[in-house]
């Protein structure tokens, strides 16, 4: 077999393997994105994976070619040459162009991921509900100073405007997420555990923090990872384009039950969301009433 035949066979085999992977349920890219920032992450990933595979194949092909052509044979003399002046310049130029191109592309995509889009037409009119309250978290003014991992410029939900995003606090603890929704009375935020419920087509800004150790907020379909670090507030955003339930998990080791540190985002229609928050508020008020009743009874009884 000639060298060319072997090469063609290898390339075909590789191409066939890659094309056959979906048939076996193997995904070569990230989870299907359902938010503009996850879209940008996915497109960056695909460009980079092509470059990475091209580089890996190039290095290995060159190595194989060098081994096959220049392995030791009886009677062969090594051509003892070394690089002359400027022999490496083409390689240097090539690598420099590659690095600069990837850098420019990376900056553009980073900005793409960070740019917060306004809510869509089907989304919640955030004006009615968006309020960033103070509840165990830094005040709004502090939020404005915090640098965000994914948000670039701090996003403030405190200024009511037509397109103000829905700001939700996501607070991590060992091994549970607590979500505090806007609205409700001061000091009595509406909250839920484990599952975040958000309206579809609405820009949601998450103020991510932690109360004990470092965790990560990450729902792959809705964007990248952000660390939840105690004492800091990091921000991320997403705008879910489809109703559904998306799962995510923390990626930073946080102790014995680390595998259980998962999270879910349920995306519902706007009316359903309103209903959900109202129901939560009612439940919380009822619970508060029961508690205060019990406390009163306890105080009343000797």
């Amino acid at each position, binding site marked *: 077999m000639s060298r060319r035949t072997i090469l063609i066979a290898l390339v075909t085999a590789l191409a066939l393997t890659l094309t056959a992977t979906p048939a076996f349920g193997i995904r070569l890219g990230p989870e299907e994105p359902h938010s503009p920032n996850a879209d940008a992450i996915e497109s960056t990933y695909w460009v980079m994976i092509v470059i990475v595979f091209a580089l890996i194949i190039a290095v290995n092909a060159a*190595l194989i070619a*060098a081994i096959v052509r220049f392995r*030791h044979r009886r009677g062969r003399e090594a051509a003892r040459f070394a690089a002359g002046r400027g022999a*490496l310049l083409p390689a240097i130029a090539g690598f420099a162009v590659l690095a600069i191109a990837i850098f420019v592309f990376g900056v553009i995509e980073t900005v793409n991921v960070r740019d917060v889009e306004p809510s869509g037409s089907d989304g919640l009119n955030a004006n009615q509900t968006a309020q960033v309250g103070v509840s165990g978290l830094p005040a709004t003014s502090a939020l404005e100073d915090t*640098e965000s991992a994914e948000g670039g410029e701090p996003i403030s939900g405190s200024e009511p405007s037509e397109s103000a995003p829905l700001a939700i606090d996501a607070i991590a603890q060992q091994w549970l997420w607590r979500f505090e929704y806007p609205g409700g009375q001061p000091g009595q935020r509406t909250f839920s555990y484990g599952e975040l419920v958000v309206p579809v087509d609405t820009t949601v800004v998450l103020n991510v923090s932690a109360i004990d150790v470092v965790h990560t907020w990450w729902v792959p379909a809705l964007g*990248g990872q952000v660390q939840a*670090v105690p004492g800091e507030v*990091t921000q991320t955003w997403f705008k879910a384009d489809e109703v559904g339930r998306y799962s995510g998990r923390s990626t930073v*080791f946080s102790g014995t039950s680390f595998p259980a540190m998962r999270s879910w985002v349920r995306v519902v229609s706007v009316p359903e969301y309103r209903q959900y928050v109202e129901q939560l508020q009612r439940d919380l008020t009822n619970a508060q009433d029961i508690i205060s009743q019990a406390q009163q009874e306890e105080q009343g009884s000797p």
Partner: protein
Amino acid sequence: MTPPPTIAPARPEIVTRRIKPPRQAWLERATSADHKLVGLLYVGTSLTFLALALTEFVLMRVQLIAPENTLLKPEIFDRLMSAAPVTFVVLSCIPLLIGLMVYVVPLQLGARGVALPRLNQLAYWLYAAGAVTIYASFLYTVPETGTAALPPLSNLTFSPSNGADAWIAGTALVTLGFVCFAINMIVTIRNLRAPGIAWRRMPVFAFSSAVISWLMVVIGPIMIAALTMLEIDRRFDGIFFEPGEGGAPVLYQHLSYIFLTGAYLTVFIGAAGAISEILPTFARKPLFSRGAALACLAVVAVLGTLAWMQNMYTAPLNSGWTIAAMAVALALVLPIGLLIYNWIATIWGGTLQLRAASWYALLAISTMACGLAGELGYSVIPVGWALDYTTASQGDTLYVLVGGGVMGGFAGLHYWFPKMSGRLLGEGLGKAALVLMTIGVHLYVIPMFLAGLEGQPVDTWQFYEDTGTDGYNLVASIGAFVLAVGILLQLTNAARSWNHGLPARGHDPWGGATLEWFALSPPPPHNFDAVPDVRSGEPLYDIRESIARRERSFEAPAARALAAPPEPAEPTAAVISEAGETADTGRREASEQGPGGTPGDGDDGEERPVA
């Protein structure tokens, strides 16, 4: 009282007050400050810890072989997970390379020892003490704080056991040992080079040891400081990393990542140094561009360490810093790409002998290239947001650590084993082990990459069935077992060959070009009786060439004495011996025109040590 009768010696002799009785061999080996014996201690200890790290790795993969497995308790898994990475990187990969350097580099420099032998010895014992401190905690309470012991998880509140203290103290001791090694190595390289070994003529492995020594002097104290601050936080109510009291947990991430990134680069640079020695020897050709190789190693160390924030894209950082980190990380394409280009160009046109050492070096390049190309992908911020801390990025790091630390380390061991023991490291078994390692590492990393795309985080004790990663984890576990079998096979091979390997042919079985092959195998305590003059990066090649030239011209001594026709100097040889020293080429060629060259700069001088 009459003095005891003395017998007059037959010949003059100097008698000390008391002659030390010879000590037992093992005691001599353990307490001698000879760099060769210290180097052997390093190599032996690091290979022991490699076996230990593998055991832990295999146990973890047994736990992750099926979804929601409960074979190991989470506490046990977390202990393995806290011990295995530090064992693999800090207790085995780096010390294996350091051990080879401590043994080989003084020989390569034509030195009779190291500059600070006691410091060198202290460095080894600090490493050993640190390792014992970490593993002694298995007798009482084991650390459960994860790979890098990030606070607040490693605070007293969340990790009340003494195991975390042992982990901190042990890691700090080992790091201190690395710093001591580095100081000795820098002083040795600066002061004890044989005449003629300019920096640009230094063997690449010796240069790489200088680079990692400078790197260790910079990053080692940072890690020791971070660990000290963490310990102050734990036991003395410190607030360095205490959120809400003015401390910042992110600060520890910065400090520890500077060290971890540097440690990763140390493995890469050490392996690159060994590969750059092995390929030219077996391809019978000088390194394509020695100058570029030396420069690339230094640039990798500087840029790579500056890019530590490349690992922290998900942390709360100012966006400008992450972009700067991305720029530095992407700039690494240049030196790393040039190094690989240089290696391939070195083989090109040569006649590559495919011995076990060269196979290990070649597959080290191939495996590391997979990991380094992947690292390029993660350097782009959005990809980092998607894949950092997943098994995808972990597999990528493993490519470089297995490729550099294990394959590169074993390549060096295969290459210098005859020098250390006078015997060859078993070739057949070595190649078989390499096949298993290569299959194993790909069989482990590729499914782990796919599982990472599904979102499987690192360090997890369990994964759930609904994540659809059970097939990947099964295959990855099998890959891990194959990898472990391969490495264990090679460890057995090394242990067996030490006393029972085939005797090496002469003191220079490979036809090496650097000075360590001029010494006996194993070298005497003082290394060299005489050191040849060094006029290029390949002194032994020059000697062989000049002998060959003499033999060729021997048939007509009369004609040569007349010095009428200058011997046709092979242009290639002239270029080679001065590779990277274009400025000298003219003078050199002039002196090669015949025996009438400048005294001490011609052919005659080179033959003196041989005669």
